[in-house]
């Protein structure tokens, strides 16, 4: 389980309006975090992938797209067990993405499903995943082992 570490600085925290159009702010923030912490390209790719899947899932399926005051907060911090942990918090209705079944790779017609790949990607590219509901929404911790 990922630890509940606090962000090291304000640069380690990003608050996004819960709208898909706001997601263009995510890649440059990840780029800055990766540069500050000398994270290798492979891990940076995994961080980008997992955060995009987790946050877009919240915005698209968390029923918060139309709520003007809704936000998604992402904070990163090093944990004692050597992981870099990203904590994603929202104020959407309770939903545990880790309990959602991954779509089959091939559907009943032998076709690749158009959607439903996000959960599988999240599970495969994250080092650790931990979900808990909060009094006002959801908290998902996504950890990555950082090579030293």
């Amino acid at each position: 389980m990922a630890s509940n570490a606090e962000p090291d600085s304000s640069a380690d925290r990003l608050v996004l309006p819960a709208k898909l159009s706001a997601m263009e702010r995510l890649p440059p923030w990840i780029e800055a975090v990766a540069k500050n912490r000398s994270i290798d390209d492979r891990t940076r790719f995994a961080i980008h992938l997992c955060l995009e899947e987790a946050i877009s899932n919240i915005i698209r399926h968390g029923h918060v797209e139309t709520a003007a005051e809704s936000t998604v907060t992402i904070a990163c911090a090093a944990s004692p067990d050597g992981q870099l942990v990203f904590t994603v918090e929202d104020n959407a209705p309770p939903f545990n993405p880790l309990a959602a079944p991954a779509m089959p790779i091939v559907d009943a017609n032998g076709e690749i499903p158009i959607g439903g790949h996000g959960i599988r990607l999240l599970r495969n590219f994250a080092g650790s995943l931990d979900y808990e509901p909060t009094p006002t929404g959801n908290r998902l911790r996504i950890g990555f082992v950082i090579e030293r």
Partner: protein
Amino acid sequence: MGIATEELPGGILRVILDGSLDITGASAIDLQMNIIAGSRKAVLVDLTKVSFIGSMGLRALVLPARAIKNHGGKMVLLNPNENVAQVLKTSGIDTLLPVYHDLELASAALQ
């Protein structure tokens, strides 16, 4: 996200994508990919310059691939980098949407 096209011998259209196929990038190519899918039967999508792909990027490839298949055509992928290839493999897309690392082999698969 950039998208360019090039005619190859044998009626093959090479679609060269350039950039990040994240949510923003995927939405930038959706329309043109749909137009291509509706009008071409042999499409080679060159991923050499694609630095990132997420599930919305996968969707931007699967949708046109299905449309092309439905009107008797075929779409293949060329030269994903190691990280992008891992996403294609994890999602299972590489099982039905062939991935090549050689232009001649990819072109031959479309003949």
